[in-house]
């Protein structure tokens, strides 16, 4: 490769050494500024696109989790060249080239070094048997090891994490999520000693112990013990104790990967390095050699290297700005951290240790509740210098952007735990940084909301999701999202846009309010509800919502007493309408278990009516192409043969998918089929804000893909693990662990409560994943309600479910019994024996499919499919 060809018109060549978040942010910053005249080559030794290391714990508990940063499509730009498997090993500043381990040479006009850090290793015997926590491969190895150990040992695995800092606690929390017993060894006297003072650290220790973590503080490990096979058995401590361990993870900090800046023996040292490593940079992020920049954890600024994402992002932006002729300068490190561990809130920011002269510390500590809150101010108690929150970090979000500014109220008013209630309303100044990861000021978010033209289309951005992607606020660690939402709502209110939770123009209540109103006042009809709470005649939004709420609460036949006119497309015909107006028919096949005779019935019906058949994603058989008036006769045959409605048409429980389980499978530990059938029959017909799916796996291999379901049940040797909030769809989500090792009764009790709580409180068409994400307090709140009954409504939720189960009737059997109900399935009111002859099929792969409009000789006129962005 010839590195020296440059001509005046050739693009400026930027080489980036390293492919972590800092490198990604730099490439992204260049991309945003426009790549005309540039060629950016990113050399990374990793095999992946740059990924989000802050969220590594998600990949630890879920190997499939995609941590890729930003839009992968960005890398398709012709001026951006990401080369994986290329590790830079040498810089030649004179020739302006770098050399990689593979022996390739790349010439540059500017070099940006973003090599990050290495995880520090323990300098004690046995360290070779430990894991570290730094890369995707590291966390996958930990995940794999815990799973393998559990199988091999046949018991719960004890996972010892050495290091009680941010990373250590995150790793330990991950092992707990994976079902291991978490043990933390920390040399310091209290946890997170870099960020927390003693009071806060002790409070955190107590909270974490309550969650089942074992903590050993103030003592150092001296050896990692293992047996002859290299299997870890324990950790020998400096005080002579041995702590049992099956796996040891070391998370004691990071060391800057600054080898590139260190001279080989006999060569001149060109770069200055910090006392603890890292190449020294100036405020423009440049090293002492012009044209060579360093960003992220390898960069030493003001004598410090820092392993946080916010300064790395800032540095990346600064270099991009400088390359484009700007004069941006690095303001110094922002060390604010917020962490959520197994539901324990921890936050620390600014001058947390009150090191400023005469600083005041306003502290509220309640060891009994495990709460510690501290605000640090100047000596006049006016200017906010920093703070620490443990146990309840609610005030952090509103205080954090006010760092260095005058507080709008006396400091004590912000200590929510002291009984001050809601923190005082604060109006953020425009220049206050709301999202510190991406350095987004409140002002620029206001601009976006009010239509500054910085985003495509110049339109005001008034949707939280769009606001995130336009302003980039809240897209990294996500901790500022509640503030972002608040700011958005505040701005909309100011500009006269009512932030309305109203269902539609006819109902001013939210779905949740409507549900509670109907429940408490025991309303049973649409007319009654509209008379009290509605205006107009209703619409396709409020009618089905009310129909669903009534069905959830009363389980009455959905097409009677005028309720038929409220039902959405599919419920109206108790079948799924297809594009040509025909319907598909899905009988229930609980748990996916079906006899050969059952299969024969379905085959005979499909054959007789000429229906197209397909196996669904939910382990049942779907028959397509039935005309409206055929539905009753088809269902008569199915019901007579013992089938019932599969309710595939409802926003209701669909299927419970299962693997074959312990009856047949040589790995299964519980009877997943029996449990799946039990659950499907229990919750069948349960109408909800959106469709519900469940899965039951008979062992940890998870063949039923239960974690992709709203409720996933996975067998363990001791019972069942319950996962909640998994969804497929456009934004897939894996279900999260709610409770472990449950017996059958407890499992069912928790699912009863979970479903009913969701049905009561979710928005219209909001699936469980979004619901529990947006619920105040998130999954932890759900856990408290479902497992700990924190709201005292568990009995009520169970009773509501019992009522549903007790009143369930098969909708199709009920329909067939009643001639009045059957009348609704006629083809034409004035010609019930005439069929719709516009429905035509053509053969394909041995079955039928609907003829296209072209095949029918029809032409669509004036119909357009609305495309996002068209409207505004």
């Amino acid at each position, binding site marked *: 490769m010839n590195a020296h060809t440059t001509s005046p018109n050739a693009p400026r060549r930027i080489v980036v050494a390293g492919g972590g978040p800092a490198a990604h942010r730099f490439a992204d910053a260049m991309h945003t500024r426009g790549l005309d005249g540039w060629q950016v080559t990113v050399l990374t030794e990793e095999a992946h696109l740059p990924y989000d290391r802050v969220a590594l714990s998600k990949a630890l508990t879920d190997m499939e989790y995609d941590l890729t940063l930003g839009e992968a499509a960005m890398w398709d730009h012709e001026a951006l060249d990401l080369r994986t498997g290329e590790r830079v090993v040498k810089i030649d500043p004179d020739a302006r080239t770098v050399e990689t381990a593979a022996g390739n040479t790349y010439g540059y006009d500017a070099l940006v070094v973003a090599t990050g850090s290495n995880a520090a290793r323990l300098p004690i015997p046995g360290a070779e048997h430990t894991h570290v926590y730094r890369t995707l491969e590291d966390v996958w190895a930990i995940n794999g090891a815990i799973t393998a150990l559990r199988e091999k040992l046949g018991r719960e695995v004890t996972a010892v994490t050495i290091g009680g800092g941010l990373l250590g606690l995150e790793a330990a929390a991950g092992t707990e999520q994976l079902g291991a017993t978490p043990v933390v060894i920390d040399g310091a006297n209290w946890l997170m000693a870099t960020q927390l003072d003693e009071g806060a650290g002790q409070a955190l220790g107590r909270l974490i112990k309550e969650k089942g973590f074992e903590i050993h503080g103030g003592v150092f490990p001296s050896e990692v013990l293992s047996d002859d096979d290299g299997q870890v058995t324990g950790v020998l401590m400096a005080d002579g104790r041995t702590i049992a361990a099956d796996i040891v993870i070391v998370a004691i900090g990071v060391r800057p990967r600054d080898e590139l800046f260190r001279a080989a023996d006999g060569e001149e040292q060109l770069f200055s390095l910090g006392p603890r490593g890292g190449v020294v940079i100036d405020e423009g992020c440049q090293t002492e050699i012009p044209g060579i920049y360093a960003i992220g954890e390898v960069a030493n600024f003001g004598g410090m290297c820092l392993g946080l994402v916010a300064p790395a992002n800032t540095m990346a932006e600064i270099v991009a700005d400088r390359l484009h002729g700007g004069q941006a300068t690095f303001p110094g490190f922002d060390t604010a951290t917020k962490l959520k561990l197994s539901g324990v809130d921890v936050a620390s920011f600014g001058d947390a240790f009150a090191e400023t002269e005469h600083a005041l510390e306003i502290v509220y500590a309640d060891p009994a509740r495990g709460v510690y809150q501290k605000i640090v101010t100047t000596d006049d108690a006016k200017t906010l210098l920093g703070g620490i929150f443990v146990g309840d970090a609610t005030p952090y979000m509103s205080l954090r952007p006010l760092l260095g500014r005058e507080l709008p109220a006396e400091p004590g008013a912000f200590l929510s735990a002291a009984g001050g209630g809601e923190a005082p309303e604060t109006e953020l100044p425009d220049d206050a940084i709301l999202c510190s990861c991406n350095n987004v000021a409140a002002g620029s978010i206001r601009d976006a909301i009010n239509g500054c033209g910085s985003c495509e289309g110049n339109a005001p951005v008034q949707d939280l999701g769009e606001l995130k992607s336009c302003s980039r606020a809240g897209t990294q660690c996500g901790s500022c999202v509640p503030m972002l939402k608040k700011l958005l709502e505040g701005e909309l209110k100011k500009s006269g846009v009512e932030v309305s939770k109203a269902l539609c*123009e*006819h109902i001013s209540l939210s779905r949740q309010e409507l549900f509670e109103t109907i429940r408490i006042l025991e309303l049973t009809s649409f007319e009654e509800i509209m008379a009290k709470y509605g205006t*107009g*005649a*209703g*619409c*396709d939004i409020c*009618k*089905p919502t009310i129909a669903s709420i009534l069905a959830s609460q009363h389980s009455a036949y959905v097409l009677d007493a*005028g309720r*038929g*006119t*409220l039902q*959405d*497309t599919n419920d*109206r*015909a108790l079948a799924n*309408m297809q*594009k*040509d*107006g025909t319907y598909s028919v899905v009988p229930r096949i609980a748990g996916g278990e079906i006899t050969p005779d059952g299969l024969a019935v379905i085959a005979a019906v499909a054959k007789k009516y000429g229906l197209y058949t397909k196996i669904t994603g939910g382990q049942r058989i779907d028959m397509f192409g039935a005309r*409206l008036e055929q539905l009753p006769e088809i269902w008569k045959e199915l019901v007579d043969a013992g089938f019932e409605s599969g309710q595939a048409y409802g926003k209701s429980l669909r299927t419970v998918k299962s693997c074959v389980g312990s009856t047949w499978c040589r790995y299964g530990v519980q009877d997943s089929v029996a449990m799946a059938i039990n659950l499907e029959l229990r919750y069948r017909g349960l109408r909800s804000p959106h469709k519900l799916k469940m899965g039951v796996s008979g062992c940890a291999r998870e063949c039923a893909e239960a974690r992709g379901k709203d409720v996933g049940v996975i067998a363990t040797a001791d019972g069942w693990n319950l996962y909640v909030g998994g969804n497929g769809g456009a934004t897939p989500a894996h279900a999260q662990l709610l409770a472990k090792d449950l017996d059958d009764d407890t499992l069912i009790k928790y699912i009863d409560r979970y479903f009913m709580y969701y049905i009561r409180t979710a928005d219209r068409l909001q699936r469980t994943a979004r619901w529990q994400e947006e619920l105040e307090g998130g999954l932890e709140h759900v856990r408290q309600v479902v497992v700990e009954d924190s709201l005292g409504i568990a009995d009520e939720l169970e009773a509501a479910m019992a009522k549903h189960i007790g009143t369930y009737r098969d909708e199709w059997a009920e329909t067939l019994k009643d001639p009045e109900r059957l009348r*609704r399935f*006629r*083809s*034409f*009111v*004035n*010609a019930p024996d*005439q069929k*719709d002859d*516009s*429905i035509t099929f053509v053969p394909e792969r041995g079955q039928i499919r609907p003829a296209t*409009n072209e095949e*029918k000789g*029809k032409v*669509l006129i*004036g*119909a*357009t499919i*609305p495309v996002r962005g068209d409207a505004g």
Partner: protein
Amino acid sequence: MAIGLESIERQVEEQAGAWHRVCAVEELEFAWGEAALVDGRQLALFRLESGEVYAVAQQDPATLSNVMARGITGSRGGRPTIASPLHKEVYDLQTGECFTTPGLRLDCFATRIVDGNLEVAV
């Protein structure tokens, strides 16, 4: 717009056709659409709580499938509406104008009730 049940007559622009008797108005459940076959043409009939009866094309303008009778009736700012059951485009039952997708239009037909029977001009 109080119109007596006995002689509902709706004039729809550019709609001149012969009156056809379709069915007894009692055959139509309030707000529950029904399809009808009139002079070889598929219509969707809606009898609203107000007593008004509307007849529109059964064919969904967006997909050309014959399904409109199976949509949900409602109102938009005082106008009676029908939402397509397929992709939920909302149409004005009186004018056929589409509220949600410009360019779409639903054919409307005049209706009247004679001796308890619904008649439609097609």
